[in-house]
């Protein structure tokens, strides 16, 4: 019997003017566009320079800032006040003020001050751009010291400590490598959690559910046939995602594909349970959509997809602890980047199994009640 139900489900999905396209293009769009757009690397920062020194060194510093690729020189202003006007009119984000006697101080006292001011209306952009600028200035000073050593101009009076940082698991701090596994989670959540929920509610709304209930098809078989159809779609979609990551970005998971498929299986159970709960409490597609919309935003923001959960305030971390997305994103990232195996992921495994049990139990109980 279930064979006929699944056959019917796929026929309906293929007839839908929207769903097949969503299933095909959504993962592609998410994986091809989002990793480029959702990035913390900030480039093309508008820079305004106030050079009060007009010497070789001050020009070298300006050139170095511009040639770094992060900054775009938009203006030279004679005074700090005028430079501020540039920021106020949003023509510049960062001011680099080089004080008078910059070169002289640097040579005579071996140290000189520069002022970096950045527009911090957007905290991230402001913080990062002044950090980039500070890096450039530090780099510049060590470069000068190196030059002096070579020319024997000045022996190094101060011993310097150079910090060499090594980025493990993502040596080039490639932001895409960090985002892509998480994007796959997002796609899977929508395909296997929310689409079947909407499908069930639509059958309720159309009255076909009632017609089916007066046939020998048991209710659970009917709903299971829907879930199974979307689970198949979910596994198809995630396989496509792995392929896209490999073909387009050249990312191959460091760990085993089987680990990811196994976790995907548990995660699918958990989110489709969540979808079922929503469908039990909704009578119309509109209601269900609003509920999904609300939860989707909360789940994404508190999942660690964009901002790390560890840097959230305590209460938000508590809420995030009840977010299945968080655990599966952790799994996908660590398998993809660190090559974690099942043993390393036991806490996440237990959490996801717990969610699957909790949501499905709730779904069964609320289903019994509403019927």
């Amino acid at each position, binding site marked *: 019997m279930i064979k006929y*139900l699944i056959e019917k489900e796929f026929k309906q999905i293929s007839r839908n003017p929207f769903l097949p396209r969503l299933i095909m293009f959504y993962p592609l769009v998410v994986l091809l566009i989002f990793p480029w757009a959702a990035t913390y690397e900030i480039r093309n920062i508008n820079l305004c320079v106030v050079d009060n020194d007009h010497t070789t060194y001050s020009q070298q510093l300006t050139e170095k800032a511009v040639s770094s690729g992060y900054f775009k020189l938009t203006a030279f202003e004679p005074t700090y006040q005028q430079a501020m006007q540039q920021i106020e009119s949003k023509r510049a984000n960062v001011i680099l003020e080089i004080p008078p006697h910059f070169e002289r101080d640097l040579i005579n006292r071996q140290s000189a001050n520069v002022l970096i001011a950045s527009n911090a209306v957007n905290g991230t952009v402001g913080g990062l751009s002044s950090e980039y600028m500070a890096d450039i200035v530090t780099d510049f000073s060590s470069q000068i010291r190196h030059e002096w050593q070579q020319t024997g101009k000045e022996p190094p009076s101060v011993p310097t400590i150079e910090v060499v940082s090594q980025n493990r698991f993502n040596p080039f701090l490639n932001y895409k490598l960090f985002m892509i596994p998480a994007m796959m989670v997002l796609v899977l959540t929508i395909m296997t959690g929310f689409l079947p929920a909407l499908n069930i509610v639509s059958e309720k709304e159309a009255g076909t559910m009632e017609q089916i209930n*007066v046939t020998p098809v048991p209710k659970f078989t009917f709903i299971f046939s829907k879930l199974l159809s979307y689970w198949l779609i979910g596994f198809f979609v995630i396989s496509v995602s792995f392929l896209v990551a490999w073909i387009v970005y050249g990312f191959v998971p460091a760990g085993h594909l089987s680990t990811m498929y196994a976790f995907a299986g548990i995660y699918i159970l958990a989110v489709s349970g969540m979808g079922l709960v929503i469908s039990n409490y909704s009578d119309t597609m509109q209601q269900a959509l609003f509920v999904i919309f609300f939860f989707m935003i909360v789940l994404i923001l508190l999942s660690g997809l964009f901002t790390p959960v560890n840097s959230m305030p305590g209460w938000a971390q508590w809420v995030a602890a009840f977010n299945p997305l968080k655990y599966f994103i952790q799994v996908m990232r660590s398998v993809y980047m660190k090559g974690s195996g099942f043993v390393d992921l036991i806490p996440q495994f237990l959490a996801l199994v717990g969610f699957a049990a909790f949501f499905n139990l709730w779904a069964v109980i609320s289903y019994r009640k509403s019927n």
Partner: protein
Amino acid sequence: MSQNNELKADSNCQLSIVNYQLSSVNCQLQLPTVNCKSISKAYGSVQALKEVSIDVEAGELYGLIGPDGAGKTTLFRILTTLILADKGTSTVGGFDVVKDYKKIRSSVGYMPGRFSLYQDLTVEENLTFFANVFGTTIEENYDLIKDIYQQIEPFKTRRAGALSGGMKQKLALSCALIHKPTVLFLDEPTTGVDPVSRKEFWGMLRNLKEQGITILVSTPYMDEASLCDRIALITNGQILKVDTPQNIVSQFDNILWGVRGNNMHKLLTDLRLHPSVESCFSFGDTLHVMLNNNALTTTALTTWLSGKGHQDVTIFPIEPNVEDCFMELTKQ
């Protein structure tokens, strides 16, 4: 499964015999195909059904006649095991609606008031799907649906959602019949259907009845009542009367006149003021006037009306129909 059925039927027979011996009222050896005993159902504070009891005999075309909100759909949903009654017991085809709901679901056909097939599947796919879930095939029961399905077969590759109202109804009926049900529940099948299709539909029901299918049909249209073998008049969740349409009409013992005039609205209000007029309702282009005594003559009424300023009034005696009886019963 079939063995089970036989066993069940057997025990029913024994039960009936006991009834027969004890009460000597029920002369039949079989329980009625559909049997409701004092069914009550409330939705919150709204009492949808109050102590409703009906019996539908095997092979009967039974009409549940009542206005919107009378409780017809609720009763159908209880009998088709979709909802549970608060009180009372019912059996369909000898099976209890609570305990044996699975057996009922595989042996009855249900056509809800709203078109509830898959709009995005074609005519043929819908029919095949419902045949499959009932564990049968179109070919197996084709003779039963042949007359109905043949009319929509030219459109079998069309999606159900794109069919006209009459064709949708034929498809829904075909799907409800595809597993050769013993009882067919039709909830307001003719609501929103044009008069020609309605007539055609009732013709199909008579044919099905001849093939031995018990049919329980609900309708708000009183004119369809006379096409049933027996009818139950229902309003506000209560059964007013159960009888054959002929008996219900013949039990109407008041004198009934039809009245037509130029100013129908004023005529209606004026007639209600006449002391000999028990009630007056508008039926299409005619007012049905029920008298409370037989002393009044048509000429006397004409004179009385012309005194009120009504000219060209025609008054003629009419035969009561089911609607007149319904109006009379609701008043009581």
